[in-house]
């Protein structure tokens, strides 16, 4: 098969998954609406605070962008692929000549598309209503962090799916991992005054290493390099771990209750 044909197949799968996404209101809500609601709520609550002329949203919109990006990749894959497996959709796909990797690329690609969309949405809303001011200088760094972060959380989402027996437990598993991780990673509340153990706990998981440098890239006060290699390193390790779990445990057949 020609490379062009593969590209067209992947593109078809991405569009297919986007369509499924928009027709599944629960997925759309949790991925896009929830971070928007958080952004609005927190920005209104802390609306009177400012840091040398910068609003709360200057720091919070990038954090919510990461939150939305992780929803789009990690939670979407963990839940979406688990249900597709339980319903026998993966099995049906495996009966066609569609290469397995093309199916996964379509799933992940659609997640990336949602992530890009939601990151853009956070910035535009922050800019329009909450005085977020775009910092352009570090866009390249932000992009690199975003790519590694999405790759890591996509792999981890599929790893969660691979380790679950049935799809009904997938929303609880995905959110049960993601939400506490968001807190210990300082997504909602900065961990400046947090106890040491909480800081260390956050360091172990990959989310802090995604959100931290991504936020710094849009922080007007930040000086020096954005990309700490240790951030990419920790995410990279989790990426490898996720891939190992997938290779070892992922199946296309329904697993029965």
């Amino acid at each position, binding site marked *: 098969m020609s490379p062009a044909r593969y590209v067209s*197949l992947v593109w078809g799968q991405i569009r*297919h998954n986007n369509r*499924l996404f928009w027709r599944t209101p629960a997925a759309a809500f949790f991925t896009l609406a929830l971070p928007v609601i958080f952004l609005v709520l927190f920005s209104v609550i802390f609306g009177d605070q400012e840091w040398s002329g910068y609003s709360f949203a200057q720091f919070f919109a990038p954090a919510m962008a990461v939150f939305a990006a992780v929803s789009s990749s990690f939670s979407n894959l963990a839940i979406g692929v688990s249900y597709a497996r339980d*319903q026998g959709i993966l099995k*049906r796909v495996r009966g066609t000549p569609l290469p397995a990797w*093309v199916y996964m690329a379509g799933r992940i690609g659609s997640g990336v598309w949602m992530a890009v969309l939601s990151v853009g949405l956070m910035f535009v809303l922050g800019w329009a209503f909450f005085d977020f001011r775009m910092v352009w200088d570090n866009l390249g760094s932000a992009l690199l962090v975003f790519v590694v972060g999405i790759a890591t959380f996509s792999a981890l989402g599929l790893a969660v799916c691979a380790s679950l027996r049935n799809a009904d437990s997938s929303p609880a598993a995905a959110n049960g991992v993601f939400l506490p991780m968001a807190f210990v990673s300082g997504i909602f509340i900065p961990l400046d005054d947090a106890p040491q153990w909480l800081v260390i706990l956050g360091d172990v998981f990959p989310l802090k290493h995604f959100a931290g440098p991504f936020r710094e890239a849009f922080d007007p006060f930040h000086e020096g390099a954005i990309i700490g290699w240790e951030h990419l390193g920790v995410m990279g390790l989790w990426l490898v771990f996720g891939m190992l779990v997938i290779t070892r445990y992922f199946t296309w057949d329904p697993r029965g209750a």
Partner: protein
Amino acid sequence: MPPAVSVEGLTKTYGSVTALAGVSFTVDEGEVLAILGPNGAGKTTAVEILEGYRRADGGTISVLGHDPSSGGREFRDRIGIVLQETGIEVVLTVREAIDVYARSYSRRLPTDELINLVGLDGKADARIKTLSGGQKRRLDLALGLAGDPELVFLDEPTTGFDPSARRKSWAMIEGLTSLGKTILLTTHYLDEAQHLADRIIVLSGGSIVAEGTADALGEGRAFSTISFTAEGADRLPRLEGGPVMTGHTVTYRSTSVTTDLLELTTWATERGVELAGLEVTRPSLEDVYLDIVGETENGGRPS
């Protein structure tokens, strides 16, 4: 021409359950073979091994010249699969589903033609979740045919259908054979196998217990029934298959009708008795089937 499917000594166990205990058969190109058997006979196991979903424990398998467990894309490009049970993205419309699933095949039947073939014309733009069970099953069939396959697997294509939906599906499947497709179907309906298949394999408890055309299956093992009415059972001749009294009806099961009839009529004329309502019933295929399957389920060997 080599057969489209050839299977020799296929075995498969799940833990302590033997699902297939050495099954051998072939399907010729352009032939319709039905695997007939009760639930749990091993039909799905056999078919899913041939489709490449499951691995056999033993035996040699060739499907269109491929080993299905390693056939890959090239293999799946040439077969069409209708699984016994599978889900689908129910938020899609019929047309969208066909378009997305058909995309990966190198050959395709046009979407409208497929929709027409399975009789879903009025439903082309309806969401799948609004379809009835029978309509969903016909969509399954359309998806199985989307890549214009040489060989089609149909695992219980009409189970749960009402009689008219069943007739319609049969007509559709018959249409496929006229296109020259090779078809391997499973069913637990005897009339379905009889209607659609060139050849029938009866599978029971993981073994093939009978094989042949619908007619050939009946020969030899078939019991005809001789019945008439009589006032009392006393002094009726004792034959191998009777008598059995039900009310005033006497029945004999008979494997050699001519001899048994001669015996009975001789007995009757000697005594001047009228064999009222004398009737000889040929066995239905249903009886044959139940007979074959019953024997194996009771642990006996087929004769």
